[in-house]
């Protein structure tokens, strides 16, 4: 029995058949499924509002997609650094894993900063939560609600990643934090996955 199993055995009386490594992983998957319903509801609501509106602006002409395409690429890159962190950890390189976790958090922080820049720019051009110069007022409402909800997830993710670096630093055995990092990764990839959907449905369509 190694440190990871010993650590797990202290708090987990029985193993789950779905995720034998830990209950935490199953817990995160169930949380993400619930969160996905939240985002699904927002996007379905967006679709319904748009379908019933006669003057919905063309999003990619109004919002511009150059910056958001860059943000999408950045989030995909941060997903790669996240899996690289896990890969290095499984090979026993704790410092490299921490470096890749820090890179992932930096990617997330840059994403949120770019989103703040984009919001500021659009607000200056007249896009408000209760109206805009281009058409249906619900366009602004849904835009800020959905991208804001996602931005909140990225912000939470950056804090989560920083906490994860702390956990990896405190546990000398790299394998002792493998499960923790994998669960953090699940959350982070989910945030990336949701952005793929938001980018397609709110910017490109």
């Amino acid at each position, binding site marked *: 029995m190694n440190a990871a199993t010993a650590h797990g055995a202290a708090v987990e009386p029985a193993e789950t058949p779905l995720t034998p490594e830990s209950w935490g992983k199953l817990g995160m998957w*169930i949380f993400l*499924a619930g969160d*996905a319903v939240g985002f699904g509801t927002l996007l379905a609501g967006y679709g319904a509002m748009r379908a019933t509106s*006669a003057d919905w602006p063309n999003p990619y002409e109004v919002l511009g997609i150059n910056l958001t395409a860059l943000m*999408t690429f950045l989030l995909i890159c941060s997903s*790669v650094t996240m899996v690289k962190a896990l890969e290095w950890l499984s090979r026993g390189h704790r410092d490299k894993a921490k470096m890749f976790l820090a890179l992932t958090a930096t990617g997330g922080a840059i994403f949120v900063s770019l989103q703040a820049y984009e919001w500021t720019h659009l607000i200056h051009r007249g896009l408000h939560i209760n109206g805009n110069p281009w058409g249906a007022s619900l366009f602004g409402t849904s835009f800020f609600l959905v991208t804001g909800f996602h931005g909140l997830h990225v912000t939470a993710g950056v804090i989560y990643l920083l906490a994860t670096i702390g956990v990896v630093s405190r546990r000398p055995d790299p394998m002792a934090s493998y499960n923790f990092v994998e669960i953090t990764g699940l959350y982070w*990839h989910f945030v990336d996955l949701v952005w793929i959907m938001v980018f397609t449905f709110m910017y*490109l*369509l």
Partner: protein
Amino acid sequence: MAEHKHPNYMAIFYYLAILTAIELGVIFLPIPKVYIAVLLCIFAIWKAALVAMYFMHLKLEARTLGLIAVTPLAIATLLVFVLLPDGFAVAKKTSDEKKVVPPAAAKH
């Protein structure tokens, strides 16, 4: 504990980057908007599936966990159909109002 299996992450990264580039190109294609929308939906689900299967290791997990992951997609799809009748009702009402408004405004 044996070393964990890891897929070729860089290959998935290039795959995702190329799909994103294609998505950006698709919106400028000179074809009807409905086809563009269908293509974009396919690409989005394709990319999301790649992230879930390889980055989130769903491919290596128990099948039941995959069912948990797919449930929200089923619920969201169902929700679209639930919202559709409501949406059409509102659209009709809006167009009726538009028909009524001009003559009323002309009386003033």
